[in-house]
């Protein structure tokens, strides 16, 4: 991993879904699912994206792939051909970049089309990207299935004949079928048994090494990210509140929200603070986010300033000098 070689740059990305209500379908407000995210994804890294349910992780992942279009801000892809602002492209223009970015979904039950065999599901994208003959496509699909440790013959079976773990591996095979550079793994293992989880994670890591992939690894489970991710971004209500190297996040937690999340992991590790911080209340609605710091209603350190001013993401020294956090109460930010 070269630290300053971003493959993807997000600047002030916002995704607001209009809420339509009444018979006239008037827009009565917005769900601020993603609310101003700045983020660089470096080539070859595993970037963790963590946060509670509903904080906008999936939406951000989809916005990266242009599956939902950002209402504001830019997503820029940097490849051999220079920089391309994906957010300005239409479907035809995006075509060339679809190949570079792929996604593995959360729910193994809806990620495969029940009406098609595995081959039927996987062959269409291949045909779309120019693999002309059926024989070639069968060979590629077979190879892909073997790469995710499944039998070649599985390709002629239907999704309902597979277990959740198998389906998830097929989903991974599909994402890799057109040789992407960046894969967004949206809770790729959350729906699986713990024993299967570890193996699918291991598989993802092996594939990453073999194929030089970059991962954006979305999860709500901070115990998975520690040994998997190079860097971790913590999201809260559509915003990134802390971003730093994985190790740093666990050893030198800055943001109170991250602290609370970490304290909720059951630890075997005895030298870690084991006192559990219970987050009070629910995640506030992204329709009416709290004023000031979005976390202040649940923050045990909250001060008057937190209620009024929105904290910016500031840089702190940390071990790498690249520790970003958005909190009024952390002292000594580095000047930019």
């Amino acid at each position, binding site marked *: 991993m070269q630290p300053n070689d971003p493959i993807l740059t997000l600047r002030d990305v916002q995704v607001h879904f209009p809420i339509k209500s009444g018979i006239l379908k008037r827009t009565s407000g917005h769900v601020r699912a993603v609310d101003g995210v700045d983020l660089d994804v470096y080539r070859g890294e595993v970037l963790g994206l963590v946060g509670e349910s509903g904080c906008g992780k999936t939406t951000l992942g989809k916005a990266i792939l242009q599956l939902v279009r950002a209402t504001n801000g830019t997503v820029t892809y940097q490849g051999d051909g220079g920089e391309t602002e994906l957010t300005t492209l239409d479907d035809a223009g995006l075509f060339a970049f679809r190949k570079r970015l792929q996604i593995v979904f959360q729910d193994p039950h809806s990620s495969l*089309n029940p009406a098609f065999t595995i081959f039927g599901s996987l062959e269409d994208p291949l045909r779309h990207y120019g693999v002309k003959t059926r024989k070639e496509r069968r060979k590629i699909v077979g190879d892909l299935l073997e790469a995710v440790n499944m039998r070649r013959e599985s390709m002629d079976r239907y999704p*309902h004949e597979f277990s959740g773990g198998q389906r998830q591996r097929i989903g991974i095979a599909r994402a890799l079928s057109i040789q992407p550079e960046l894969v967004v793994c949206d809770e790729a293992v959350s729906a699986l048994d713990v024993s299967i989880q570890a193996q699918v994670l291991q598989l993802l890591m092996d594939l990453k090494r073999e194929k030089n992939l970059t991962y954006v690894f979305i999860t709500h489970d901070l115990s998975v990210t520690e040994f998997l991710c190079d860097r971790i971004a913590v999201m809260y209500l559509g915003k990134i509140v802390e971003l730093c190297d994985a190790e740093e996040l666990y050893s030198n937690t800055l943001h109170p929200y991250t602290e609370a999340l970490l304290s909720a992991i059951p630890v075997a590790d005895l030298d870690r603070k084991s006192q559990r911080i219970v987050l009070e209340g629910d995640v506030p609605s992204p329709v009416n986010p709290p004023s000031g710091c979005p976390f202040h209603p649940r923050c045990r350190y909250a001060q008057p300033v937190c209620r009024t001013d929105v904290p910016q993401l500031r840089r702190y020294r940390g071990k790498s000098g690249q520790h970003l956090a958005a909190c009024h109460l952390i002292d000594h930010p580095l000047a930019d």
Partner: protein
Amino acid sequence: MTDATVTRPRTRRDAQFDRIRDREAKLAGTTQRKGRFLSKFLNNRLAVIGFAIFAVICLMSLFAPLIAQHDPMSPNLRAIAKPPSAEHWFGTDKTGRDIFARVLYGGRVSILVGLGSALLSALIGVIIGVYSGYVGGWLDWIAMRISEIFMSFPQIILVLLLVAILGQSLVNLIVIFTLTGWGGIYRMARARMLSIREEEYVQALRSFGLGPARIAYKHMLPNALGPIMVNITLSTAAFILQEAGLSFLGLGVPLSIPTWGNILNAAQDLRVLEQNWWIWLPVGATISLFVLSVNFIGDGLRDATDPSQQG
């Protein structure tokens, strides 16, 4: 054993996966999807009976020239309004035409009208509903409004209007049924699409940049086929009843063409109703039997294609 093991040194994980794989292979069901559908349908006794009746009536109508001994159109003045006999199984009507032959030949037209209108409205409804339901936006809005206009128009008035303008004919009747019938199947197809649109496999196809028509018609439509088939069968039954009703009123197919409705039309005469039961009872029973059998098939299809019911 495999290419993958050649290109990559075998690790402990491979061995682990092999074990899991074997276990999963043992658990994996050997039944195919198609087989499961068929066996679920065949297990439904009513659906099978319905299908048998349906097939018998269809085949008899289709091979009417081989089965019927008499011409359905030519009057026989020596046998006017005769009750059933060995010569005329269902008797004869007031102009001495053989009713059995008329029911067989009438079935051809009635089934053509019912099935034809149902298939045509399904074609239109599905083509519009599947695409507009998937892409949404203004296209969906317009399609919805158009369907509302067609559905809010009272059918009987549309029939009167078209009969007045275009005259009575078989084709006009099918056109009328299609125009008034496509809205229902359109809405159903659209609603199905709205619910599958957010499925992750659809998102995955989008992430590959596949076009909306390909995603909607090739990948999503097969998952809506169950309810669509159910809808086609049920609207076939409904259209056959409507044809009978309209023909009974003298607004359907021209009276010169035998249809089930036109045969019933004779029963408008109170004397026929009271004295010549064989003129209306056999054809009435045939209509009921046919409609019932089609409904049984529809129910069977619904159960067989419903993924929430394990078979």
